């Protein structure tokens, strides 16, 4: 009886504590099923386009996470050391600059960044597609990294308020070790992973939004055709939009639902990938919160 109760408790605990893993598996499984379906029913050029767009978006998302982590860490530590060192002018200057960046709406900031990128692309400075993806990711991360910076500052602040920080300082442990090893690696890894997942989701969402905006014609030069294909830019194409609009047909003719999976596959595919990826990302992040009691 006791063994059965313990086993049930363990199963319940494992189920509750593995939400993030289950959603990660679900995402991979969902994408695999989709790929299988596309291989069977989607024309090759469209499939190649979707695959390129997906790859660019995912790589872009990962790069945004990477850049945001580095920029967030540098800015948080910069602020910390300037504050602790009593360098008031530099501290205020850096705080002001970061707040200026914070005050700019993300979409507007990224659009301005894309204007700069367009100029560079048109001048052949950014020729290689991979370089363009890296640059696009950097622009997005410039307007996202403050989330990471704030988190790191908050974590350091939390431990500074406890005896934790001072107790280690008094024992002669280096401040860099206290922050990087004791606070960030040992006590904030779950928070940082959670934030990284959230930043990834945000990056995918922002990219899609920006690509959608520039696809409707921001200017003659800032156009989606100048940039590598992403999920957003493929979704913004006329045929994809018509595929999405076709969903409305189902309300007047239910039998049309089968046609969606065959005749309107490109737009439905892209929309599904975006929504499914964002839903899974949201649940993975929430699962991490629950698992580690963040």
């Amino acid at each position: 009886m006791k063994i059965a109760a313990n086993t049930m408790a363990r199963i319940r605990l494992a189920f509750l504590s593995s939400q993030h893993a289950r959603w990660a598996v679900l995402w991979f499984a969902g994408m695999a099923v989709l790929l299988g379906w596309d291989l069977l029913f989607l024309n090759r050029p469209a499939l190649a386009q979707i695959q390129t767009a997906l790859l660019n978006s995912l790589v872009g998302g990962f790069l945004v996470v990477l850049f945001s982590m580095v920029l967030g860490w540098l800015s948080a530590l910069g602020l910390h050391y300037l504050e602790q060192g009593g360098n008031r002018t530099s501290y205020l200057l850096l705080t002001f600059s970061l707040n200026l960046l914070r005050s700019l709406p993300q979409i507007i900031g990224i659009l301005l960044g894309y204007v700069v990128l367009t100029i560079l692309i048109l001048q052949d400075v950014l020729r290689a597609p991979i370089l363009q993806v890296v640059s696009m990711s950097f622009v997005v991360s410039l307007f996202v990294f403050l989330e990471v910076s704030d988190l790191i500052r908050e974590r350091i602040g939390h431990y500074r308020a406890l005896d934790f920080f001072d107790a280690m300082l008094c024992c002669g442990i280096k401040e860099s070790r206290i922050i990087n090893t004791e606070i960030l690696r040992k006590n904030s890894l779950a928070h940082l992973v959670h934030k990284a997942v959230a930043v990834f989701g945000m990056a995918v969402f922002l990219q899609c939004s920006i690509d959608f905006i520039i696809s409707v014609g921001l200017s003659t030069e800032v156009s989606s055709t100048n940039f590598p294909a992403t999920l957003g830019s493929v979704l913004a194409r006329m045929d994809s939009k018509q595929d999405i609009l076709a969903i409305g047909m189902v309300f007047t003719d239910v039998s049309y639902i089968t046609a969606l999976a065959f005749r309107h596959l490109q737009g439905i595919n892209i929309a599904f990938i975006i929504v499914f990826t964002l839903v899974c990302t949201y649940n993975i992040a929430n699962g991490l919160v629950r698992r580690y009691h963040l």
Partner: protein
Amino acid sequence: MVINNLSFDIEIAAEGKLIVDIRDFSLERGRVTFLLGESGIGKSLISRALYGLLDPAELTVTVNSRPYPEYTAGESVREIQRQGFFVFQEPSSHLNPLMTLGDQLREGTLARATDRSEVLHALWEGADERDLGSILDVYPKPYRPSGGEKQRILLAMALEKIDMRPPSEDRSPEGLFVFDEPSGSLDNHYRNLFLDLLFDRFRKRPFTALVITHDYSMISRVTRTNWDVMDRVDFRELARRRGKLVMNDFEPRTYTGWVEGLRRSTESGLDDPDRKPVLVVEPFLEVFGRRLVVTRDVEGQQPARLTVPRGAMVYLKAPSGTGKTTLVKRVMGLIPGGTFEAKLKDIRLTGTTPRTFWHERIWGRSMTMVFQHADEALNLHSTMRETLLGLPVREPLTTERMTRLAGELFDGDEVGDLLGKKVRMLSGGQKQRLNLLRALALLTDVLILDEPLNGLDFESSTRVIDMLHRKMHAGMGLLVISHNEEIFDALAGVDGTYYLHAGQ
């Protein structure tokens, strides 16, 4: 039904892992049992289990081989609860934030109490009706009243409940009064006051009580002032031996004799002209706009430099909340600015000494400090080995050196296992010993100790004091702040005692 002696076999498991397994834990009817032991060893868990307060959804509990739901549904547990009272360790968690303290004093069965003013006046010495009213009319949250006042409210409830017991000829069931760390938020004066009130009642008519504490100095107070009822008082100690929990009788003389021995053998060394001051702090300080004065007399009339000689212990005393911890943090350079001047060997330290200087010359090199709360001061996600890494020691701390060092405060046969264990898995007492060990591993000139015996059992306390003696013999100067006056009065002597006062 009359509850006779209460005897328990208790097993508590969490996530399939046995965390408490104690056999023949008995409480004799009409006796006061003091349950001693280091913090985090399971004293509170055992008392909550027998009182029927644990959540069976969280923990797998069996009491006397009965599943917990069956045990808690039993008539005997309900009578224990109905007729008794449980004073929780953390007063804030006991009090309802939506009710005033006065209303809570009249809640439930306490509403039948006829006269509660006697208990309240006894616990709030010198307070008139208006003063008491101002305390009873407030809500427990957010910030008022103080931890000590909340603790006294709970103790007042328990004492009232004792006064409400049915007449002795009434053969109705008897309750159990549990006091879990009743003096946790009280200074020694109020702790003694509470013990006197408890034993006054016990003397008039005995009841069954369990007092859980890691404050061993209670033993001295109880044995000294209640010698006439000592035949009805038990002292038990919960300890872990070879990974197993064991409950032993604790002979009061073991503790009182040890303190007496300390007193006799103390050589504070302050009169020794060869012992030069290693740290001198000017008597007037200002921290966060608050003035503090160090004096040699308890009345605060003789301001004096706080002088810590090499190889000696200095004890700084003050009531709770005066600012002892603030002062030592100021001395350690953790609070910049304000009026402050000190001399560490030949180094002059002031409120404007740059932080880089503290980093390079003071922290961990000339001076170090042990913080009060091990739970906050240690990284709970590190192992014991990792906790000792990164210290500025001359020779690297190899596993062999760590084992030897840890062996001074831990059992030799448990050190090997403990080095790789996460700090969060250690008991409160083990954490405190590790907290001390980290500072004691350093060869500094001055060591500041804030409540060094917090949460330690008797054996660990003796080990810590022995180690402090060795450090003093090696030439280290110690500055101690502690509520454990009995032990540190004995160790520092009159010459080594200073007092802190809040200035005008």
